[in-house]
């Protein structure tokens, strides 16, 4: 498993610079979620509103043009479901 913290001060990057852009992806915010979105592709018109409004940027288009959320990061805010015009997304309890 990747170390969360540098072991010693010597491993602290000069000036506290983080050299790997976007490496916050190692922090999985999916655990914050108590509700999760579920897509009903039969209703989906592939407009992408869910993708555009996701504060996490964790919704992406699959090869067929439908949308899926990366559950490693989805915090379950419910915006996608609330904003989905054709009501293709439902928010359900986790578990």
């Amino acid at each position, binding site marked *: 498993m990747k170390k*969360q*913290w*540098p072991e010693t001060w*010597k491993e*602290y990057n*000069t000036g*506290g*610079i983080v050299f790997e*852009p976007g490496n916050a992806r190692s922090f999985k915010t999916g655990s914050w979620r108590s509700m999760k979105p579920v897509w009903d592709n039969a209703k989906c018109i592939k407009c992408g509103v869910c993708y555009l409004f996701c504060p996490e940027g964790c919704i992406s288009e699959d090869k067929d043009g439908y949308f899926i959320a990366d559950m490693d990061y989805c915090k379950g805010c419910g915006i996608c479901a609330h904003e989905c015009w054709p009501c293709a997304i439902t928010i359900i309890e986790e578990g």
Partner: protein
Amino acid sequence: MTKPVGIEVAVAAAEAVALCNIDVAAVYPITPNTHIAEHLSDIVADGRLDAEYITVESEHSALSAVMGASATGARTFTATSSQGLMYMHEVLPIASAMRLPIVMGLGNRAVSGPLNIWNDHSDIMLQRDSGWISIFAENGQEAVDMFIQAFKIAEHPDVLLPINVNMDGFQLTHMVEPIVFPTQTQVDQFLPSYRPFATIHPDKPLSMGTLALPEIYTEAVKARDVAIVNSKKVILRVWKEWGKQFGRKYEPVKSYKTAGAETLLLTMGSMGETAEEAIDALRKKGVKVGHLNMKLWRPFPFEELSKAVKGCKLLIVTDRALSYGGPGGPLCSEVRAALYDDPSRPEIVNYIIGLGGRDMRVEDFMKIIETAPKAKKSGGAYQLYGVRE
């Protein structure tokens, strides 16, 4: 070597900074450093220096702007005094934490209130713990030399820390005196071009100025402390190199007529030379007294100080600032702490002198040296020299 020219020290400092071919300067006017700001902008306006000169709306923004510029890999400069330095205070430790090798000129001045525009060291002492390298010029020539040295020290890959060059406000900044300037070729030989270790640019996106949780903050502090402690090696090397190239010697603690001295007087900044006139006068009378002038304040020169005071019985430390309700002047506090573990340490007395432009004549230094043996020596004692009771 070129011949000395008569020039105001602040103007000479700006010329020295220009010789270092800086890329970005941001300076906000404040007495007594203003002439640096004015003259540097003249140099840029005349096209003698290709640099961006940002006429910021505050000192806080002055340092912030040079930090932004330094992060892009630019060689940067700012200057200030007193209230301006106080206004910068928030950003000072961030500059050292981010390891940005900014050079700052300080025309040292008392701190309000009451409002006072004249010289002492209250401003820099209040910023003592900001993680900056701090050096003090004793005369105009040293100020010019130190600005050029400063860039080399700060930008050294083993250092990467901001540095302030202190020169006494008015006593130095407004003094026309003889200065020998190195030529551009000499400066170019001495000072390599700045090679930043990381820059903010889309070619290699990185994040600067990140947040440290309790799990990492201590390590971040340690890393910076080690950097500033280790910077002394580079400082000594740069000073040695300077001495070789230009024939002017720089030491963390300069000794003057210390051979056989039982009493030593320690000063920092431009009063050192006046004090030396007092030493000369007393030596003629047979008094065994010598003088020390601290040029390196951060990192603190523990070994050099210890060596310099060896054999003396009484050490008179003069401070140009007071820690209210504390153990006296900050210089003396640190000298006492530094020598505490030395069993052969001298007795130490502390005089707070020259506050807010109060003049110090040769006679004053003689009086201090003559009365010091009777002064209370222990328990953090100090006295404000010349205060009217």
